[in-house]
């Protein structure tokens, strides 16, 4: 199995990512404007609820990024192709970043709404557990120098951590239901749906752009780490004369 060669950096992917980034930022600008100024304030929670327009897409995309990391890990273990390792690295980093943002936004929402920074809401708690799990995988990647071991081990850790996510979610949900009734999401007004959708698509473009760019950076590092063997020196040639 040929695993020695590193994938080249693709200029086309970089250009595509920059275009996606531009589209994403444009969409987000429109979405944020709509969310902040156009959409009506929510009946019970008031202005605070506007954080939902970023919080909900952040949560979705954190999950999306980590799902992509899971697929990349499976693909790497199956195909032994370095491109999947680069994608795994990018997706885990983006997933961790979005999970951190999501937890922070959850806390900002929680304080005025529930009166506490942290609520043991199953979604929030499962997100926090997932965040810690994938932070561990990032630490693992930084602690292993051999590119092959790093790729295989972080793929293995990603697969089992991701398989654990639904189990964590349901266990936290049952655990929590013993203490309080779970808050059910209210039906959302259509005036609120529009900015939410725009933001979700905007963030999707930004996510795709960042994952692509980050994986190209990872490819660049891999190319240096997986450089082909140096040419034989003259001393060896002299030894091999016979």
């Amino acid at each position: 199995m040929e695993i020695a060669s590193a994938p080249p950096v693709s200029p086309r992917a970089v250009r595509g990512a920059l275009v996606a980034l531009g589209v994403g930022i444009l969409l987000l600008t429109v979405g944020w404007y709509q969310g902040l100024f156009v959409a009506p304030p929510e009946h019970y929670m008031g202005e605070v609820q506007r954080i939902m327009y970023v919080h909900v897409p952040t949560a979705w995309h954190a999950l999306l990024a980590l799902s992509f990391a899971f697929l990349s890990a499976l693909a790497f273990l199956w195909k032994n192709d370095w491109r999947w390792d680069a994608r795994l690295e990018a997706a885990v980093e983006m997933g961790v970043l979005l999970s951190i943002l999501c937890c922070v936004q959850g806390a900002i929402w929680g304080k005025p709404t529930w009166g506490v920074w942290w609520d043991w809401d199953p979604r929030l708690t499962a997100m926090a557990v997932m965040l810690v799990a994938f932070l561990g995988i990032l630490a693992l990647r930084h602690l292993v120098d051999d590119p092959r071991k790093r790729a295989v081990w972080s793929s293995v850790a990603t697969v089992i951590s991701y398989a654990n996510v639904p189990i964590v979610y349901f266990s936290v949900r049952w655990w929590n239901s013993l203490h309080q009734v779970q808050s059910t999401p209210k039906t959302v007004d259509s005036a609120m749906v529009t900015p939410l959708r725009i933001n979700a698509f905007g963030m999707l473009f930004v996510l795709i752009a960042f994952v692509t760019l980050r994986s190209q950076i990872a490819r660049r590092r891999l190319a240096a780490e997986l450089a082909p063997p140096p040419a034989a020196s003259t001393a060896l040639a002299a030894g091999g004369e016979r």
Partner: protein
Amino acid sequence: MRAVAAAFYKDLLLGWRGRAQGMAVAVFGATLLLLLSFAVGPNAQMLRQLGGGFLWVALLFSSTLALTESFRLERENRAIEGMLLLGVHPAAIFYGKALANWLQLFVLGLLLLPVMVVLYDPSLDGIGGVIGVLALGTAGLSAPGTLHAGLSSQTRAQQVLLPLLLFPLVVPVLIAAVRATSLLLLGDPMGQARSWALLLLAFDGVFWPLCGLLFGHVIEE
């Protein structure tokens, strides 16, 4: 199967020879139980409530020591590579070791149980059930623990990497085992302990096959 039995026997023998180390781990666990009660204060009612949780936290912390030790012996002279070179399948090595670690953690739990009873004075009616929960819960720690200990034993900073990778993974085990234990010790009018035990069983059912499948990737170079 034969290789699993041989690997299991080997790990048991090593565990027995290294029992001084095993006892030290148990003492560490007991010390943790004592320390955790200082975090609460001499409130007998509250301590009784929290006893089940403390038992599992102490067990979880001690388990990383036992798991690290089991791979230190394998790395010392590359014995695990030697086993692979005999043509032994990685999954056989995994299941032998995971079974031995399970047994070891279960015994550790049995040793910590009386300490917990003495310190926190729970009712003893559900103690048989608690032992069953110990068996299921330590199985849930053992399979992912063996996989991640095998992985982190090959890295720098293995002392911190193992808990960092393992603890988030076993959150469901901790939740389910603590709830089941507490319900059994404090009274379980709704019969909920059974469903928590089922959750533990489900976790074991997912992770024993999955970790065995992935172990080869972790130890082959």
